[in-house]
């Protein structure tokens, strides 16, 4: 491969944000027909590097070379003209337009006939072997198909370099298989691909070479075949990791344990249908399942964010007492905590410090409310949780949005746990969390169960579910379809139940 000329090179790339190096002295190259994966913790500089390549930001210093020639992109449009296209996590398609219109977007002639447009789009989609109807509005497509449209658009724009940022984050296992086939297809067409993913297994599987970034520097670039997951993680965090799994409660069902939460035939619209399960004190129940299987929704129904059907909506019991909350506040007063899956959207207050976030959690409870603020109480609470969750306390005065993903998640946790719940529901507790931090969060989950709390963990990441749960439920199409003990559960069994 090295005999061919690199289609893209970054030489000594630097980007400084407010005095801090987001990336520092990065050298990176990419050959035609190659998949080059970027690995690294959140904040390691993967996104910054890709944004610079795609023209969304400009490097503070250093050069980007395309086909050996120095380029200076002022905006994404310039990069696109050079054949570089970035497929973002959140798709950048216009939902109300059809597939064909979206593919053509930005290249429209003054007058366009929809018929010609549709025919051209159809030809393109067929040549890529995509099963998408060009006349459907994009809003009606699933995530996987939207991604296909994005790729088709990239090809339509003569992209020779495509950057994928977390492309598989919201795909089902089957869609991922299809997506990989597609990436290989692009590779044979001579397209060069930069691939960012948190799932290291995927990078190892699909990439020719992998570059690991740490703290904005490039640590290693090596062929994927010479690397293993452990080696990658070691390079990412700069030291060998402590094994995440902390002795699971393998005693199994203790006869004296108390049933805390019962969900009986709960139904909400088309999303949750007749879902039933129970949670006992002192255990961790993992709920696995694909996106859209109703896992998040049932958590939100229990917590009072969503409302189950009034008629035939089923019953939720808390220690035998039927409950139906209008607002989360009531759930919190009853000792339920819910840590959301998308912390940026609704998990923390971004303009505030760690201390303020934790303190607000306490103030919002019935017993924690005081009319006047107390700085002493705020520091005391924050100190306790910073120590317990090992939050990086160097940045206590910083606004939480400037912290790493792992620290943000820990603060979101602290903000809920400070309310002293007896039932804790985690929704994707380690999504977007750096590898070094995941053990801390898993430890906390186990610790809560050992303290006698009932813990529910919703996660798409099966190794995590297997590591922390005493009992594993599998959700599919709004129902619980399988239940496994910790001992008998395997990834294959869970996946099989989740899909079939």
């Amino acid at each position, binding site marked *: 491969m090295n005999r061919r000329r690199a289609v893209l090179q970054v030489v000594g790339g630097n980007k400084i*944000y*407010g*005095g801090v190096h987001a990336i520092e002295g990065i050298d990176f190259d990419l050959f035609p027909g190659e998949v080059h994966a970027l690995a690294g913790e959140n904040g390691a500089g993967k996104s910054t590097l890709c*944004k610079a390549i795609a023209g*969304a*930001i400009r490097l503070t210093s250093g050069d980007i070379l395309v086909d050996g020639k120095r380029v200076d992109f002022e905006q994404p449009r310039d990069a696109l003209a050079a054949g570089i296209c970035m497929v973002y996590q959140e798709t950048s398609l216009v939902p109300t337009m059809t597939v064909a219109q979206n593919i053509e977007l930005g290249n429209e002639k003054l007058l366009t006939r929809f018929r010609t447009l549709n025919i051209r789009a159809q030809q393109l989609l067929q040549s890529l072997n995509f099963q998408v109807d060009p006349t459907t509005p994009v809003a009606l497509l699933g995530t996987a198909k939207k991604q296909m449209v994005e790729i088709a658009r990239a090809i339509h724009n003569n992209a020779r370099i495509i950057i994928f940022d977390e492309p598989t984050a919201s795909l089902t296992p089957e869609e991922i298989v299809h997506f990989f086939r597609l990436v290989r297809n692009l590779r044979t067409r001579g397209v060069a691909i930069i691939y960012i993913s948190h799932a290291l297994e995927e990078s190892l599987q699909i990439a020719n070479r992998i570059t690991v970034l740490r703290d904005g520097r490039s640590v290693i670039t090596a062929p994927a075949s010479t690397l293993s997951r452990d080696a990658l993680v070691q390079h990412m965090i700069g030291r060998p990791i402590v094994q995440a799994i902390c002795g699971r409660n393998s005693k199994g069902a203790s006869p004296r344990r108390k049933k805390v939460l019962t969900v009986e035939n709960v139904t909400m619209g088309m999303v949750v249908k007749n879902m039933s399960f129970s949670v006992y004190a002192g255990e961790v129940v993992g709920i696995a399942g694909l996106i859209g299987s109703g896992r998040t929704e049932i958590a939100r129904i229990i*917590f009072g*964010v969503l409302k189950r059907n009034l008629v035939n909506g089923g019953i939720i019991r808390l220690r035998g007492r039927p409950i139906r909350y209008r*607002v*989360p*506040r009531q759930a*919190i*007063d009853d000792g339920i905590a*819910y840590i*959301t899956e998308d912390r940026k*959207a*609704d*998990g*923390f*207050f*971004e*303009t*505030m*410090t760690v201390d*303020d976030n934790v*303190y*607000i*959690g306490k*103030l*919002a*409870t019935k017993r924690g*409310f*005081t*009319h*006047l*603020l107390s700085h002493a109480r705020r520091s005391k609470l924050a100190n306790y949780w910073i120590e317990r969750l090992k939050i990086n306390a160097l940045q206590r005065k*910083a*606004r939480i*949005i*400037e912290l790493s993903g792992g620290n943000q998640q820990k603060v979101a946790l602290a*903000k*809920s746990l400070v*309310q002293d719940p007896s039932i804790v529901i985690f929704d994707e507790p380690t999504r977007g969390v750096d590898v070094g931090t995941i053990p801390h969060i898993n430890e906390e989950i186990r610790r809560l169960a050992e303290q006698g709390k009932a813990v529910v963990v919703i996660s798409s990441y099966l190794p995590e579910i297997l590591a922390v749960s005493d009992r594993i439920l599998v959700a599919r199409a709004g129902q619980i379809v399988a239940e496994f003990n910790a001992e008998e559960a395997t990834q294959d069994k869970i996946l099989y139940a989740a899909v079939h």
Partner: protein
Amino acid sequence: MPPDSRLAPANGLRFNLARPSQEQIVLLITIALLIAFSLTLKGFATLNNLLDLLRSISILGILGVGMGLIVISRGIDLSEIAIMAASWSIALIEMQQGMLAGWASIVALGLALTAGVVNGAIVAFVEVPALLVTLATGFAIYGLVLWFAPAYVVYAPKDAPALLFLGAGRVAGVPMPIFVFAFCAIVMHLFLSRTSIGRFVYAQGDNPEAAHLSGVAIRPLIVIEHVLVGLLAWTAGLVWIGTTGSMQMAITQGTMIFDVILVVVIGGISLVGGRGGMFSVMVGCVLIGTLLNAFTIMDINSEVQSIIKGIVLLAAIVLDNRLHPRDEETARQGDL
């Protein structure tokens, strides 16, 4: 939004010379203007003129304290002027018909608070955007008042010195409106920075969904905020009557509400919510007051004044943009 700027008042004013916040920039510009006008304009740097400058922006400032609160909570209240004009128009009509000034003031207070409750209840429980709700209630209030009491200008009774004192009186040579503005701003600052409910207001403005999920009682909070806006509208009306000796329903139809929003936004209370504080309102007010006062001395006509106001607002936004370049990681829609 850049780091270290727009700190909540609880964090105090932290000066970071490398990355000044919008309120600090506006403060510096104001000081620069004050110095420039003092040197160039005859009669600007006299004690009387400076007191007059402050007096002239006091009503705007009192209204701005209320608007600042609601904008920090990611809301807005376009009916503030209507509440002020309507509650006091009715009170003055009652006074003309023989009601005691004290009782009439309480009636006005009742009306203003009721309007706040109605606004808040619709925003909180019907879940309609505050912008549209208060725009609509503003129209409705205007119509209702003119229907019940068809008088565009109502004069205050001459024999009620207590009623006029807050607007017309002086203590130690300083006009009362300045004290009222300072009092309102300080009390609101203490409310926002020292009480839990104040913290909840910032939390709601920062991320309403997260606040809801954390157990903050959002709906009562919204009602409280709108009631406080009503209270401040009432206070501003009291000062207005003392200053002008009358109340005009016509101001409801004017551009005054935009001036209020202008002083709030210029000082650094972002429309995205959760940012800025009462200091922002004060700085914004003094800047606008300085400009208007200098224009009056220079005898610039009101069209030109309007143009310059527009330019100042634009300049504030552009300056902020230059000093704090948007970072695609943290930028949000509606960010100033």
